[in-house]
């Protein structure tokens, strides 16, 4: 009948069946992701959506990925390898293996991976993987995400590769151990249950797929999905100019020492593959911004994927075309017991450096630097009734200008897909008042195309005291422009008490008292192309719309605009600019 997939040749790939199975897997993995968001407990999963989902084949290679946090998923290979090293021959239906240890395939302790093996007719045929950022995993600070820890042992509960569920039953010993070691056990256990519920949905749907097509056919098409992505990737790389392309970017500092942290990348384009070398990047640092190898690789894959055009599937076939070399003991491949909790920041800079190098390879396709990653604000303490609260809030973001368009403002970093927590939700649940959540005029890098504007968000504490942890960057090394575009405004942090504002460094851990207001300003995105080549009408429109000031228009673009009306003074502009350069209608 029409539902039975035709399989005229047991070794051939039928293009129709291939399309159907690919769509089917995309639908399954989205359904897994959807289940997580609907069943989880924490704001960081449900509102911020800091989690991800994937389907892997029986060898653990990722074949499908949900539209969630892109950066998590390139980390699956390392975690999967660690998981298989322990349990390859000891998995049964109903099991779910978890791990968060950065030195056993994890990324940082709050990210707990869950692998649920998929069995069909008695044999292992694949995995459903769900990764969630948990609100707290213990350690010296609430949220377990401090950037000023100096050893992994301070960062919280390290979970090696272990089974949380065995044969469908939860391991109560482990569950109680986790509950005892985290500050908000009901939320953490709730999110873990959400991960398991989502995995079960994925397994159920994979079961239907395998039952429909049969084991051999399903296996063959899963393998073809990887080959297909690999083919598409190699085909594109073949058209790239051969050679080695370098880019250097920096993290301001690690918060403990003022030393800048260089991230050096060299991409070598071979015939149909690339090799990425991070030699020259900083040695591992004392504070907790070291990026584990799995995370560094993940950022690298993601960056290359962004430079590909078209609908290349997001799977391990793409990874096959990318070699990654990271010196051991570096900030991108630290040795235990280096602290890693705030490694996301370093990942963002890897992404920025990679895009800077890729801009030399495929210049029409790569934007200037974005805001440099989301800022994490963690506020924790006790309410008047002594009940504890933890706010983990993420502030995003701006994209850099594109080769053919302005950058976007108020947008997740392109390497993530984060959301924000509504102000009213925060205020209803926590003793805090948000006093601003707004765009910052003039914060963009100027250019023929301008970067997106940065965002300001401020928090007034309504409890007696709390601990503030704030992790930002891009105060010293601002988001870069490309092709003559300007750098964006730097990030800023303040604390205000009784109307007096005091500047804070980019990375902060300090107590706050009632009535204090902490203000964070994110940088904007870098500009692209010569600011003097920007069409005056676009400049005037930005002034009219309150996105840049008339002064900015004059300074960066030599365009004269009336501050009040936003009207362009064309005569004065020509006089200032002289001969029009690169005028477009």
């Amino acid at each position, binding site marked *: 009948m029409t*539902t039975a997939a035709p399989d005229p040749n047991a070794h051939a790939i039928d*293009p*129709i069946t291939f399309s159907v199975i690919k769509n089917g897997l995309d639908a399954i993995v989205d359904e897994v992701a959807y289940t997580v968001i609907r069943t989880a407990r924490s704001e960081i999963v449900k509102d911020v959506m800091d989690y991800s989902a994937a389907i892997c084949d029986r060898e653990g290679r990722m074949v499908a990925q949900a539209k969630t946090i892109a950066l998590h998923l390139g980390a699956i290979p390392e975690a999967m390898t660690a998981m298989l090293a322990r349990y390859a021959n000891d998995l049964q239906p109903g099991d779910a293996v978890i791990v968060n240890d950065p030195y056993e395939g994890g990324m940082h302790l709050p990210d707990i991976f869950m692998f649920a093996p998929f069995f069909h007719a008695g044999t292992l045929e694949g995995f459903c993987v769900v990764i969630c950022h948990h609100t707290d995993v213990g350690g010296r600070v609430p949220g377990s995400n401090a950037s000023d820890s100096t050893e992994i042992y301070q960062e919280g509960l390290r979970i090696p590769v272990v089974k949380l569920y065995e044969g469908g039953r939860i391991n109560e010993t482990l569950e109680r151990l986790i509950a005892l070691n985290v500050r908000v056990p009901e939320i953490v256990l709730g999110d873990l249950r959400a991960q398991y519920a989502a995995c079960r949905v994925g397994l159920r749907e994979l079961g239907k797929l395998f039952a429909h097509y049969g084991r051999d056919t399903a296996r063959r098409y899963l393998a073809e999905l990887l080959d297909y992505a690999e083919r598409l990737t190699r085909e594109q790389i073949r058209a790239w100019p051969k050679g080695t392309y370098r880019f250097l970017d920096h993290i301001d500092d690690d918060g403990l020492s003022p030393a800048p942290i260089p991230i050096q990348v060299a991409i070598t384009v071979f015939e149909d593959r690339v090799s990425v070398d991070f030699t020259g990047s900083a040695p591992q640092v004392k504070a907790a911004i070291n990026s584990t190898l799995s995370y560094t690789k993940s950022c690298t894959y993601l960056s290359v994927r962004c430079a590909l055009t078209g609908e290349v599937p997001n799977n391990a076939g793409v990874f096959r075309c990318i070699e990654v070399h990271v010196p051991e003991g570096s900030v991108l491949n630290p040795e235990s017991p280096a602290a890693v909790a705030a490694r996301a920041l370093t990942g963002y800079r890897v992404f920025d450096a990679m895009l800077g190098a890729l801009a030399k390879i495929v210049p029409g396709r790569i934007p200037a630097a974005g805001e440099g990653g989301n800022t994490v604000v963690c506020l924790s303490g006790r309410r008047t009734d002594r009940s504890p609260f933890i706010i983990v809030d993420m502030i995003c973001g701006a994209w850099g200008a594109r080769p053919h368009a302005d950058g976007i403002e108020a947008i997740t970093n392109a390497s993530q897909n984060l959301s924000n927590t509504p102000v009213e939700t925060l205020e209803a649940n926590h003793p805090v008042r948000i006093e601003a959540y707004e765009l910052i005029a003039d914060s963009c890098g100027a250019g023929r195309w301008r970067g997106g504007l940065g965002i300001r968000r401020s928090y007034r504490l309504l409890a007696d005291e709390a601990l503030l942890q704030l992790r930002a960057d891009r105060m010293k090394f601002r988001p870069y422009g490309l092709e003559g575009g300007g750098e964006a405004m730097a990030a800023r942090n303040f604390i205000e008490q009784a109307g007096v504002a005091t500047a804070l460094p980019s990375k902060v851990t300090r107590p706050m008292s009632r009535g204090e207001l902490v203000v964070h300003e994110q940088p904007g995105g870098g500009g692209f192309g010569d600011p003097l080549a920007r069409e005056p009408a676009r400049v005037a429109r930005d002034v009219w719309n309150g996105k840049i000031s008339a002064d900015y228009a004059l300074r960066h673009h030599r365009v004269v605009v009336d501050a009040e009306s936003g009207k362009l003074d064309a005569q004065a502009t020509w006089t200032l600019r002289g001969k029009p350069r690169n005028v477009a209608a």
Partner: protein
Amino acid sequence: MNSPESPAHAASTASRGEQVRLGCDIGGTFTDLVLQRADGRLHIRKASTTPDDPGRAVVDGIRALLADLEVAPASVIEVVHGTTTASNAILQKSGARTGVLTTQGFRDVLEIGRIRTPTMFDLGWEKPEPLAPRRYRREVAERIAADGSIVRALDPAEVQAAGEFFAREGVETVAVCFLNSYVNPAHELAAKRILEAAFPALVVTASCEVLPEMREYERCSTTVVNAYILPAMRGYLSKLRRELSAIGVEAPIQVMASNGGMMGVTLASERPVFAVASGPAGGVTGSARLGELTGDRDAIVFDMGGTTAKAAIIEAGLPAITNEYEFRDGISSPSRFIKGGGYVLKVPAIDIAEVGAGGGSIAFVDAGGLLHVGPESVGANPGPACYKLGNERPTVTDANMVLGFLNPVALAGGSLAVDPALARKAIAEQVGAPLGLDLLAAAHGVRHIANINMARAIRAVTVERGKDPRALTLVAFGGGGPVHAVDVARILGIRRVVAPVMAGVFCAAGMLTADVEHDLVRAVLRRLDPQAGGDLQALADALRAQALVTLAAEGYAAGDVGFELKADLRYVGQSSELTVRLRGDTLDPAALEALRADFQQAYLETFGYSSEEPLDLVNLRLSARGARPNRLAFGGIRLEAAAVAGVQGRRQVSFARGDAPLDTPVLARGMLDATPRAGPLIVESYDTTVVVPPGANARADAIGNLIVEIDP
């Protein structure tokens, strides 16, 4: 309020003679009219849509239909209307110049949104432009805390100054959106009063009136959409009113709302945001009514048109409703797991999943050798390759033509001549050749991918909501629905398909089956415990009183109003809710305990687990329905003979890839009766084609619905 819309008024108008009602649906290609007579006769008319002035096709069509039938315009007692005015204003960015008045520090809530992108790895993505630009978003230094207390009082002079700015700038409509107004609306209402008093030309919408719920972005976005489309909707409805009056139709106009009910013109002119999804709602409401007759109280509604296919579900005789959706420009992906691509509307709407798979969806092979179908569509003009209007790219309709499912001479009751050779050429050259497949295999591929995409829309409203589609009936309409329904049903394990009578104008007919329905909501946000009863009861009573006032203004006595009380609940700490119906009208401890149990059951069904942890009650909702005594009941209808006429014959049809085509009987719809006929079978009528493959059988019920049962 006087009551030009009241049924009483309508009845007096019509007491002079016959009483007829009109349903009217504006589609991309056709404007469909259905005229309902008191004796059950139905008359159908299709007119070409007039995109520059959509009301013209409505008025001209009504005039022509009445003239043909020799029905006096004064006999029309009601016009029920699905309007695209609201959705078009957003799609075409043709709404009013819109301002926002908001709390200091929150000027950009509308533009910031929820930050996410609907795509990954796409550095060329563009975020939708906010409907109110930053210049027109002004702040005042007021502040209300999360508990409703006033942190900083509203300064009327600041509101006045903002109003002056709006007036200077030519802003026509303003959304007032203050932080935490869902707890305490005092400042919003005061600002609205000040603006309306000082600037009578400004149309002001306060967010607490549209959506008194937590979450500032969703509330602001919804309010801004309302403000943005309000002048267009008001203008459209008043023009339609004038023009209908000019042809002698004085009957009240009812607008189809997104929730599947109707709303009077007055309300639709104030809260157009409740009618953005007006069009598709009629078909779903109609399916629910039809299900009462055919015994399909739990059904999937499947509406396939030229550009998209839509799916919704009916549960226990009622359409499933969502309280939030995103209005998007085009359909970028069949995945529902995307956000940030459009404008958020947090209003009750029939929960419809839409995919870019319609008759006109284009099939193409990508660089890696993967076959895609849609979301790009050729539209009605030039249409599929076989339409001979200049398009050469292969579409789903072309695949159906190649396989023999569609009439090879003409479609649409003979009015649209087609050329199957053009379909064969397009499929063979652009799908078959690059994939190394023969013509029939390539056509099956295109059709199968389209079927899979449509099944995905159905999964979105069933499996993703914890519903098993196999237990449901598939109600298929729209031009293409019955062509694909049985194959789509098989993908999902569905055994029963209903192709309703009048499948081609079903949305317009469905509108005649609607009641007047209003949904009210109040934020509560408190623990669900036995002490909650008193407060909740008072709130529920207040909502009921408010609904009665609104419905009384539309001519409904209290005795004709039905209520349904619902609660949005979640486990403490979660941030998305499930809406659960209350079993009765009272909120005593027993009712609250029952509510808790019902939530846990619903949660278990949706997510596969539940727990005994405490619950938060987030919102209380009330649906109030004014029952229409003369609404269309399918049981008594009689169709004109022409609607079911057709030609009998046979043709070669390829039902399954790899199998030889079958010599297949082709019947006119009117030739089927209660005796099941086994497939293969093609049933043609002027507005659609029903495909009954081998392994399925079809029969007609008393009013002409085709029931297809699929063998296990």
